[in-house]
Structure formats: C-alpha cells, structure tokens
C-alpha cells in the first residue's frame, strides 16, 4: 500500500467517524435548560385577546387541551367556579400564561433571545395561522389584530390597541343580528 493511498483511507475513516462521534455528543449531565419567555406582567392584554379568540369551552377553554386557557368563556381555575359567570380572574390569567409559555419552551426561548424575530417558528403562531394542522382551523392571519398582538408580545413591546381590537369580537353587524 502506498503512503498516499493509506493517507486517503485514514482521511476517509476520519471523515466518516467524526460526524458519528459528534452525533453521540449530548448536553452534559449537569446542563439544564433555562427557559425565556416574555414577562407575565405584559401578558394580560394578550391573554384577553386569546381568551375570546381561542379560549371558549369548545376549543382551548377546556381541560382536555394541552394549551389551556382559563376564564369566563372556558374552563375555570377554581374547581367550584362556573363558566360564563364572573369575570376572568388575575389567577386565571396567570395560569393561562403558564400554559402558553409551556408550548415548545425551547423554541419560545430562541425567539425571545432573537428579539422576537421569526415568530413563525413557534407552534402557537403556526397553529393560529393555520400553517400547521389545527382542528380549530385558521384563527388569525399574519398581520391582523390577533397576530400582531401575539407577535408584538414576543418582540417585547405589546401592541395594546391591537390586542384590545382583537379582544373585541362581535358578530357581523353587532349583537343585533
């Protein structure tokens, strides 16, 4: 075997094995995931919009959903509470916030670290926009009030007027239909 062919074989072996070794590397046993999410202090206007758009009993206002939104339109946090009665409480908003930020926490942390850029990486956005399978179908369009409300929250500057507009959901022509 010539020196050059031996070299070629050794090089090929290294090229083949190195990626496999890399693939076996994982986080160290001591490593922990530190999540990052927009502050709960900034959530209430977002939560109010999500509540009427997504949090009714037949959708995410149900204990049967992974994304669980508590409040007057859906499941109550208090076991003795009654849906449809009494306004949404601060505790319910906080519980809904905890549920929202637990959806793909690693992805959410990356988006927050990137200053809210490319929010379409997050399941809440893809499901809501209908770009991913969603039994509730498309519930917002990129740039509309609901979408802008959520994405501005991810950017760290909640667009409160857009959230308020999203929360004001009336039938066409108003209640006098």
């Amino acid at each position: 075997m010539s020196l050059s062919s031996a070299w070629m074989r050794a090089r090929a072996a290294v090229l083949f094995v190195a990626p496999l070794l890399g693939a076996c590397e994982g986080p160290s046993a001591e490593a922990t995931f530190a999540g990052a999410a927009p502050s709960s202090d900034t959530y209430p206007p977002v939560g109010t919009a999500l509540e009427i758009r997504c949090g009714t009993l037949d959708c995410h206002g149900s204990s049967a959903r992974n994304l669980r939104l508590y409040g007057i339109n859906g499941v109550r946090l208090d076991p003795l509470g009654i849906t449809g009665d009494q306004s949404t409480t601060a505790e319910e908003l906080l519980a809904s916030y905890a549920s929202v930020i637990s959806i793909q926490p690693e992805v959410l942390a990356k988006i927050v670290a990137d200053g809210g850029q490319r929010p379409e990486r997050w399941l809440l956005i893809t499901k809501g926009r209908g770009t991913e399978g969603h039994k509730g179908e498309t519930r917002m369009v990129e740039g509309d009030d609901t979408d802008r409300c959520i994405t501005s929250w991810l950017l760290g500057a909640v667009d409160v007027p857009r959230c308020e507009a999203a929360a004001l959901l009336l039938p066409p022509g108003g209640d006098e239909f």
Partner: protein
Amino acid sequence: MTRTLALLAALALLGTASCSDPVRDDAIARLGGEQPGVPEGPLHRPGQPCVLCHDGSGPGDSDFAFAGTVYQTDGPPIPLSGAIVRLIDSRGVKYETATNCAGNFSVQKTDYEPVFPVWAKVIYGVAGGVPVEQVMGSPIYRERSCATCHFDPKGRESTGHVFLAPAGVPFPEDGCP
C-alpha cells in the same frame, strides 16, 4: 383464488376496524337507550349532544350543522317549544330554525354550512313590544352540539342547559302531547 379472497376479506376487516373510533363509540354508549314512549326522531333524546350520532357517519341518519335543546328558564329543565334559534356566521350568513315540543332544534348541513365562528341567540315572544331574546355569551368555534358545553349541573366546564329566561319566569303550558 381462495387465498386472494381470504386476503381481500382480511383487508376489508382491517379497513373497517381502523375506521371505528372507540372514544366516540363509548360516548354514544354512555348516552343510554331511548326514553320509553319516545320514538327515534326529532323529539328524542332532548339535552343530549345530537351531533355525536348525527354527524354524517351514523348511527343517526341526518348530518347536522348544529343541534340542541332549548329550555324555558335556567331553573328546572322544562322544554321551550316555538322558540326561534338564530345563527350568524363570520361572513354574516344567517340561519333560523324553531324548536319543537321537546325543545329540540336541528340544522341540516345541506341547509347551512357556516364559516366559524358562529354566534347564536334564542328569540321567543314579545315583552313591551320588543322580542325577548337570549344571546349566547361567546361565539362557537367548532362544536356543533349545544349539549357538549351546555349540560347540567353548571360547573367549571359547563354553562348549564340552554335557556331563555331566568328561573321563576312563568311560561304557558307546554310540552309534547
């Protein structure tokens, strides 16, 4: 030839088995049998989630866009006949139907295919020259059976039966003969 037929039969059986939904089957079984003296039809099973069976895949014959039962008050569940159920979808397309003597109403899919969300109200009689109505507090996003969310007793995930008036309001004698 015999082996081919056996294979086809096995495939057909497999196909049938894979189409059954045990969760739905259990939910239907839990509804129990028919009430004695009430034949299958528009008057049967008031207060039950109609579209569980009437969703186009059986065992009920009809394919309902919406169906439910309306009661007089939020007190004891006495059916309200002759009430108008008015629906409007996100495009502004309306549909009206009336409750029968069991308080039941249904909307065939062939008559109304709404684009969600849908808003609903019940209208009955006149007071002070104005129609008396009860508007549903939140829109419907996907559930087509009223009773999936509106069942008794009221609680953290049920808003109670559908009604027109507060408990104690008197109504004319009603019910099926």
